[in-house]
């Protein structure tokens, strides 16, 4: 009997071992980005921007050109590149600390200017890299090293919904929130990424895909339970779906 490879490591990924903890869904998201760039045949003219977070080292993981950006500033770096290389594909890969906290201004203004870039936004409701501090997206009651009794609305506010907020920006073209908690959603997430990169390739403007992701280590639960926790706790507060799509005629 002969056989056909139906799934293998993407050519969009290098041979480096990913630096993520076992079972961290950052890895799944990396695969999707890599596969999408390969599928759309964009890899050779893509520049990716690593941000600061657990994914800081992913300049080694993607097999396209990469720049490592200062914490929160990836969309500015992407703007800098895209404006001088308008025919390239430029994406940023940013965590929720990076994008929603220190870098919210840069994300908003890239959208505001309608920069023709794609943001891959990984929301794991925590600062993974620095050991589990509270993020703007940390849920109420969630324990982190800087909300040790659980996030408390009175002193720490209510979790920020980034896609909802960014969808209000007139300059943004496409914003969707996805999850990678099972194969079906992984495939849906990939479709979203494809749409985003396709929009960029067609020069239709700014796109952002928000991924609900896990942090088994800092959440203190195993990888599978982490996925379940994301489904049970994060998705209700961060509903999946398309938040903005100017390509279907919406203003």
């Amino acid at each position, binding site marked *: 009997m002969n056989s056909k490879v139906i799934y293998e490591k993407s050519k969009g990924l290098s041979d480096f071992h990913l630096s993520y*903890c076992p079972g961290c869904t950052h890895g799944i998201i990396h695969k999707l980005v890599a596969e999408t760039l390969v599928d759309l045949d964009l890899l050779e003219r893509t520049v990716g921007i690593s941000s600061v977070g657990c994914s800081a*080292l992913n300049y080694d993981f993607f097999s396209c050109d990469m720049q490592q950006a200062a914490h929160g500033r990836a969309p500015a770096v992407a703007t800098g590149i895209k404006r001088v290389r308008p025919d390239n594909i430029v994406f940023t890969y940013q965590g929720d600390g990076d994008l929603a906290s220190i870098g919210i201004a840069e994300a908003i203004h890239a959208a505001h200017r309608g920069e023709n870039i794609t943001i891959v936004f990984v929301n794991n409701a925590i600062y993974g890299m620095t050991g589990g501090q509270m993020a703007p997206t940390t849920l109420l009651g969630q324990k982190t090293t800087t909300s040790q009794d659980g996030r408390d609305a009175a002193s720490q506010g209510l979790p920020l919904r980034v896609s909802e907020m960014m969808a209000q920006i007139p300059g943004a073209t496409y914003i969707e929130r996805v999850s990678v908690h099972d194969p079906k959603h992984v495939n849906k997430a990939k479709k979203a990424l494809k749409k985003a990169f396709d929009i960029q390739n067609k020069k239709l403007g700014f796109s952002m895909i928000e991924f609900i992701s896990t942090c088994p280590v800092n959440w203190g639960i195993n990888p599978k339970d982490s996925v379940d926790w994301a489904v049970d706790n994060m998705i209700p507060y961060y509903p999946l779906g398309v938040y903005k799509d100017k390509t279907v005629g919406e203003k």
Partner: protein
Amino acid sequence: MVNEKTIIAGFGGQGVMLMGQLLSYVATKEDLNTLWFPSYGPETRGGTANCSVTISESNVNSPVISTPDSIIIMNKPSLNKFQSKLKKDGHLLINSSLVKGLDYREDVNVYEVAANDIALELGNLKVANMVMLGAYLEVTKVFTNEQIINIMKEKFTGSKANLIEMNRKALEEGKKAVRS
């Protein structure tokens, strides 16, 4: 005069840091000078980790231990990294469950302790570190098991308190492993 300089090294997750901290806690309690210092490998996640502990009756100066009196080696990469630093006639304690088939220096005292195996026998792989610590205490005599257990009682509260008994056994088994 007490003046013990020890490096403890292994994978992240093997409890290497805690071993060192326990020694420093006891030292503090005994009014000795002590300094504990951690170091993590360049890997962000799941890489190697080590700590240095100095225990001394006089002031502790350099936090960096150039020539340790003892080293506790919990995994293969650490042996290569630290063996050469050990002082002549120093103590080289090896977790022989994981470190196999490597060469040791001849001018030092080598103690092989199958810490993982012993820990698994005790029912919890996690106490492999305590097995090694027991062995270390037996060899160096800096402190007694009891001093370590007392500190644990102070520091381990809540659910962790239940593990103290297991740790006591691990320390004991570690002692035995090098005594025999």
